[in-house]
């Protein structure tokens, strides 16, 4: 079966982040026709884990991998082999040989076993889907947390250029970010978290926070931003007594301030038109 080996080898050696690297000794089985036994020897190689692919090189500086182990469908287990710190990558297929690898020490072995067990595409997909769901839920509960917004002057002194009074509902259309990749995630119509913002991109669209409910401080004057010592449990506070809700509001304010600050800095750079 053909494989786009040149591109695969390039992927192995390019500077995209590796998930784990290190020296391991790889068990090599040699069969002798005349003697009816196998000799077991170990070859020390430089291993690079990228995604669900485990590459190995003769030397750390080698320009091309000697080999590749596609890790989908594998299990990783500790080995009762003669060698200490040995572990094996095994596949379901009964006839398939296992890859027995030996680490330099206990910590290295544990780190490799951990990294390899989580290397499958499915595992990554599971985590991404779970986070997608969590973000959706975080958006929903933030929207629910909001009391009826009042567009009054209770927050005067702060530019209300982000004037959207409510979180937009979850969008069906995937959000297209830079590099041409979209954030629509799962193909099962999981949808895009509507509250997602991308403040790291220049000119990126940032979803505005919900309008804050009226706050009455002890002095009777309004504050520009929530003070850290603000107690959500104040009896006459209209803010929800749930601390979780407050921390969300707090981070939303922080986000808006970050955007404001950045815009201010950009205007400064442009020389104040």
């Amino acid at each position, binding site marked *: *079966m053909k*494989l*786009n*080996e*040149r*591109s*695969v*080898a*390039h*992927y192995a050696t*390019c*500077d995209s982040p*590796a*998930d784990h690297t290190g020296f391991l000794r790889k068990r090599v089985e040699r069969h002798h026709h005349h003697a009816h036994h196998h000799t077991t020897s170990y070859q020390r190689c430089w291993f690079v884990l*990228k*995604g*669900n*692919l485990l590459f190995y090189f003769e030397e750390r500086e080698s320009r091309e*991998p*000697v*080999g*590749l*182990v*596609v890790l*989908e*469908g*594998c299990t990783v287990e500790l080995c009762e082999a003669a060698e200490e710190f040995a572990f094996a990558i095994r*596949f*379901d*297929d009964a*006839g*398939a040989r296992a890859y027995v690898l030996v680490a330099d020490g206990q910590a290295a072995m544990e780190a490799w076993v951990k*990294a390899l067990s989580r290397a499958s*595409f*499915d595992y*990554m997909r599971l*985590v*991404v889907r*779970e*986070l997608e769901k*969590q*973000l959706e839920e*975080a*958006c929903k509960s933030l929207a629910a947390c909001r009391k009826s917004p009042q567009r009054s002057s209770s927050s005067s002194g702060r530019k209300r250029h982000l004037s959207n009074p409510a979180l937009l509902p979850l969008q069906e259309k995937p959000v297209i*970010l830079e590099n*041409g*990749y*979209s*954030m*629509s*995630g799962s*193909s099962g119509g999981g949808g895009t*978290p509507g*509250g997602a*913002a*991308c403040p790291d991109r220049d000119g990126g669209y940032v979803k505005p926070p919900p309008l804050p409910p009226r706050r009455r401080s002890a002095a009777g004057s309004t504050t520009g931003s929530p003070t850290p010592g603000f107690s959500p449990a104040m009896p006459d506070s209209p803010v929800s007594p749930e601390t*979780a809700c407050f*921390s*969300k509001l707090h*981070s939303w304010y922080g986000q808006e301030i970050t955007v404001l600050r950045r815009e201010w800095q950009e205007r400064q750079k442009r020389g104040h038109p």
Partner: protein
Amino acid sequence: MRYNERELLSLARQPAEKAAEVLMRVPKKGSVLKKRLVKLVVNFLFYFRTDEAEPIGALLLEHCRITKEEENVFSISFVEEPERKYCFECASEEQCQEWVEALKRASYEFMRRSLIFYRNEIQKMTGKDPLEQFGISGEARFQLAAPKH
């Protein structure tokens, strides 16, 4: 470069994200469009002769560029050789668009970026790191800014 072909063949037999009969042309001189069954499984695109159970070949979909070409046609090329294109002609423009979207999201690298994005968003909104529950919050590959070695 050695690789565990047996496991790759086994992967080709797994249920696919997407599969279709298309016309395919490989970037070899004099190559023509041929009817193939293409099957997307995790970050590999397998291609088969339509009546065979074992694939002719596999394309690892990392660091590749998916380009919409003329009507019904898209291509896959790889960053280090952008002119070498694998071309695919679909039955319809709609099918073509679906494949382009699916293939763009098919890489492990894409999922990693999504994960980092969601993690960041959730952290901003809730103040909590969602990866704590998985016990993987410390892993280098999930950090916002990948350290350059």
